[in-house]
């Protein structure tokens, strides 16, 4: 039986980071979509219904990744959103959790930390698929 590839959406306005993370996850067998802006991320989410989204919080022109998260949940409710940001303020973490993020990662995290969190989410999605 063919194993369904999980879809990962990456939002980061740092183009280098976005592209590199895309390559990392593509190598791991995920179907990866990238966006450098919040609007692009939401329109992609609406179109492809990603399983997982990695979202930066501080975006250009004052757009917040947490607002983008809420909008993504509106168009792809099953999408598991992970915030990836330099801001470790407790209030920000609370705000992200309240808006529906399943994990909050603070830059500069290691590649192992990133994969660990995404693999855990992927396993949960697989479980949900078996039982749901």
């Amino acid at each position, binding site marked *: 039986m063919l194993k369904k590839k999980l879809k990962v959406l990456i939002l980061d306005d*740092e183009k*280098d*980071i976005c592209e*590199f*993370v895309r390559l*990392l996850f593509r190598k791991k067998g995920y179907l990866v979509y990238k966006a450098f802006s919040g609007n692009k991320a939401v329109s992609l989410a609406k179109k492809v219904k990603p399983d997982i989204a990695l979202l930066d919080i*501080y975006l250009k022109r004052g757009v917040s990744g947490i607002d983008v998260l809420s909008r993504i949940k509106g168009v792809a409710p099953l999408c598991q959103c992970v915030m990836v940001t*330099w*801001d470790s303020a407790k209030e920000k973490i609370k705000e992200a959790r309240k808006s529906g993020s399943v994990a909050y990662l*603070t*830059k*500069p*995290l*290691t*590649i*192992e930390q*990133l994969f660990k969190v995404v693999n855990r989410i992927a396993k949960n999605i697989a479980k949900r698929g078996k039982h749901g």
Partner: protein
Amino acid sequence: MANPLPNERQIYEKIEKQNIIIPPLVWELINHHIRNDLYMINLIIGSVVLDGEPLSAENAKKVLSHTNSIGTFLDKLCKLTQTE
């Protein structure tokens, strides 16, 4: 890793005792610039270590660019904030 300064412990104690703080606005800049650059360097070098493949010239250039970016940012911040 840089060697600690001979008086580093005393510096930390002084910061703590005298409650010396960096304004949040400055922290915002430091965190944004340095953490993003370090994240990219971590990802590039981490992937080399994980895959056991040699670092490509293209990725080495990216590492250099991000380390230089940290240096440029710190120079700028020092110029703007140093009083002496």
